[in-house]
């Protein structure tokens, strides 16, 4: 699919990039980053116009984020019902949604470009957790602008090395995303461990300490 999209990229330019980045923000398996790198190269070659390319990619990504956010909003009722059930899981969920509402802007910003495979899921989660629309939109615009500038800029600056550059970038993004997921799950397990310790202490048992 990547080859086909790259072949038609010079003909459809900014419109194709708009569609590609929009769909990629909705968790569709589309190679948006390599398309932006190649578009930067086509712009340097004179086949496309640089600012058209950047604008198309940016508009598509922002629209995709908004769609994802509002799809997530459809799940708000389900999240609220889970929070109202009571118990430890509901408490943890309440804390997580509260954290998303307060600090979600940073998750939105960094998940646009530094750990971009997680971006679509952050959109859905932010919507479901009832994160403020203005904070979400600010994080989205700033993050997507960074994403577009980095990738289109990379393509424009090193167009003759795209074939070597792209695999390095793709695996780097994969590494960042895997580390981010591992850290988040590690934090979750740490909190669960502490909860077990407190529970054991309150029952008068000998708590298991991590250190």
């Amino acid at each position, binding site marked *: 699919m990547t*080859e086909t999209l*790259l*072949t038609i*990229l*010079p*003909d459809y330019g900014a419109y194709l990039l708009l569609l590609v980045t929009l769909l990629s923000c909705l968790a569709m398996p589309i190679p948006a980053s390599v398309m932006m790198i*190649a578009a930067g*190269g*086509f712009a*340097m*070659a*004179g*086949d496309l116009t640089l600012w058209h390319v950047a604008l198309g990619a940016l508009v598509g990504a922002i629209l995709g984020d908004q769609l994802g956010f509002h799809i997530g909003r459809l799940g708000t009722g389900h999240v609220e019902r889970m929070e109202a059930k009571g118990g430890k899981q509901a408490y943890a969920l309440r804390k997580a949604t509260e954290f998303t509402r307060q600090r979600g802007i940073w998750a939105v910003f960094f998940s646009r470009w530094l750990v971009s495979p997680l971006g679509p899921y952050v959109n859905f989660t932010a919507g479901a957790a009832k994160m403020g629309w203005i904070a979400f939109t600010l994080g989205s615009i700033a993050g997507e602008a960074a994403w577009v500038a980095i990738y289109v800029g990379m393509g424009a600056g090193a*167009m*003759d*090395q*795209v*074939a*070597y*550059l792209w*695999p*390095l970038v793709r*695996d*780097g993004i*994969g*590494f960042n995303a*895997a*580390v981010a*997921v*591992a850290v988040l*799950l*590690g934090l*979750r*397990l740490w909190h*669960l*461990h502490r909860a*077990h310790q407190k529970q054991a202490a309150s029952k008068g048992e000998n708590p*298991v*300490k*991590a250190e």
Partner: protein
Amino acid sequence: MAKPLAALHRLWVHHKPTVIMMVAAIAAAVFFAVQVNDRGRDWRDRPAEAAPIEPWMTVRFVARSYLVRPALISDAIGAEKIRWKLSLEELAALQGRPVDDLIADLEAFLAEHRPPRHEPRGQ
């Protein structure tokens, strides 16, 4: 040593899906770290000239990458009147030949006509 192991065992017993997901994420991180290391080596050791020509590239893309005038390339592959935005694959289809043949002609032409780079990369 026994206490951390007991804590891990307790997490495994009570929160198996979370532990499995975390182990999978760590395995993915290790896999990508190895890949990044290999790709980084490829990047450092890449040849002095531009990256290989691909079927999705246009004549102007190749021309700019190899620092050759586009008109010279279009003449060399027998496509005097071309739409510049056509990819090499589309050009080959118009000429009724495999794209690999067209790329081979292009590489032979560039081997003679591209300007030399000053020094190999990474030195």
